[in-house]
């Protein structure tokens, strides 16, 4: 389930203990989480950004793609 922080915060106390909390829903966090879930763990991922990734400048990543980027 993917849920905004404001919605989750209201019910966080009633969600009990997770097997793991993963800080960061990026390259490593998602890959790792998928592996933990495959092994039967109940996992909470906390992502600072939104459902669509932006550069730290606030520009959406897709808008600057091709500028100074390398494969």
């Amino acid at each position, binding site marked *: *389930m*993917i849920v905004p922080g404001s919605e989750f915060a209201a019910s966080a106390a009633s969600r009990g203990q997770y097997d793991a909390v993963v800080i960061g*829903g990026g390259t490593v966090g998602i890959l790792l989480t998928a592996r933990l879930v495959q092994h*039967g763990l109940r996992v909470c991922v*906390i992502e600072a950004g*939104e459902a669509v990734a932006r550069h730290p400048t606030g520009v959406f990543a897709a808008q600057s793609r091709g500028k100074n980027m390398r494969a």
Partner: protein
Amino acid sequence: MTLGRAVGLGGTSTLWGGQLAMFVPDDLAREGHEWPLTYDELRPWYDTPCDVLGIPAPRPSSDFLEAYGIPVLQHGALEPFFTAWLPQPNMARLFRATLKGDRIDVVLDASVHAFDFQGERAVGVRAKTRDGVDFSIAARHVILAAGTFGNVQIMLSAGLHGPVPWRDNKLIGAYFHDHLSANAGSFEVLDDAAFHRLVDNGVALGTKFQTKFRAKSGQSTSPQYAASSVSDLRIENGSPR
């Protein structure tokens, strides 16, 4: 710091082209640069990540040259190797179904700033929503996966909120290094057709691959070394920028 990173679900993988290079045996066995493990010890560990990411397990370069219809290069200071491109490098898309499953909660727009400890063991995190609402999450394991800068930012932030086991560690937040890069040489292409047959992106074994070159083990990439084989590459001095 800015263009090279992305914040949001999928993180910097949303910018990534998805190209991966794997070690070849010589990488771990160069004279004077030996690693504490052999390629044979490492090789089995590639199978799972290759399977998860949807690329074939490592194969010898000769397999790709054969698939491309190019004879194996016998001479020269350089030898080709092949990088694999992931079919889907954006981790948020690759694992979209998993993220929506019922054994997982993905919380967006919330930042962790501190940990709950039992002794020196982290047993939960404290976070704040973008709107400023505080909440806590209890967990048997706490995993930092916020990247080079994000992890450090959170660890330093946690130290401001209370005692942390790493409070005396002076390395956290120090000694950052960027990638070093420099021009080491340049090619003069003598046969355009042969060159492009070798270096253009190709599809072999069901996956997109790209040719790269590495110095052959035991040989220096000295100037004026002519590769006298199919690609007819001549290496010349690069002028550092």
